């Protein structure tokens, strides 16, 4: 019996590396998000304060990068684990597409919030 266990895909290393890197970036951005929301300006976070802050491009940029990294890290994480349980190529393509779509939709909704909410006032 000579079974070939290999899947001959070398992409695992890159996916792993990006997951590690995005984790570090995510930590920094999470802190930035936390500080800009809660500690800059008045003590208590109020709707009007945040909407006011959202007029500043640098504030929105931080939230946008945070959203992007969090979505990438989260969806990549689910994909890495889900892959263990899927052998059929069809199932993989389906689940991958669903995850990518989910990512795109959440990104879109998040961007609407970030860039539209402040601009409306």
């Amino acid at each position, binding site marked *: 019996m000579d079974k070939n266990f290999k899947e001959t895909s070398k992409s695992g290393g890159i996916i*792993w590396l990006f997951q590690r890197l995005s984790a570090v970036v995510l930590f920094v951005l999470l802190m930035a998000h936390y500080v800009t929301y809660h500690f800059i300006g008045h003590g208590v976070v109020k709707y009007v304060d945040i909407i006011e802050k959202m007029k500043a491009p640098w504030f929105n940029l931080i939230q946008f990068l945070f959203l992007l990294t969090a979505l990438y890290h989260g969806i990549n994480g689910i994909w*890495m684990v889900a892959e263990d349980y899927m052998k059929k190529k069809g199932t993989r393509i389906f689940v991958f597409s669903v995850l990518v779509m989910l990512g795109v939709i959440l990104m879109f909704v998040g961007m609407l919030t970030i860039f539209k909410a402040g601009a409306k006032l």
Partner: protein
Amino acid sequence: MSKEKRVIKILRYDPANDKKPHWVDYTGEYDSDSTILDVLNEIHWKIDGSLAYRRSCRSAICGSCAMKVNGQNILACETPIHKFKGKIKIEPLPGFSIIKDLVVDMDLFFEKLKKVKPYLIVDKPLPDKEFTQSPEEFEHIRESVTCILCGACTSSCPSLWGNEDYLGPAALLRAYRFIFDTRDDGANDRMDIVNDKNGIWRCHTIFNCMEACPKDIKITEYLSRLKVKIVENSI
């Protein structure tokens, strides 16, 4: 030495007669520092000679007697029964198919081990006497060379339960052991083998293997070092 009454539950399965594994209870008086293997021997010799289990060295060195007791993968020959409170539930190693009772099919396990070329590969000219290695160099592999191939780690890995093609921690640790051995020249070859979705990248640092290892090898840590080396090598 005090004897105490213990209830031993063993998951029995005889493919010739049983549809699926089922629990059988045995009650007996045992010394509190008897090992699980002593108990199995007692049952095998005095109560039911048809009980199947593997053992050989009874010194925690051959790796044959790994099994699951009260939810933990252990070596039967080195684990005393006083470690377990109440009923003692003995099962075959999870993740492998059962041949009979506590004997599991280890063929795939050893086949995967062979895939990583578990032997010294030497391209350089042979030295006059022996290959020398400094204590610092040896330190990298000191723990990993103590692996006895009992299979407790691979059997405890959720990634393997999800996909039986995953090489598993024991084979990957063996790859680590040679890749980080300064006397060996086969590192690139082996890294190419384990750099695969069914290889090292199915390890999600779950740490089950480390908890299961009867030799207390920090498997997850070594596999992480291997990941870093592979990524560094391919950039």
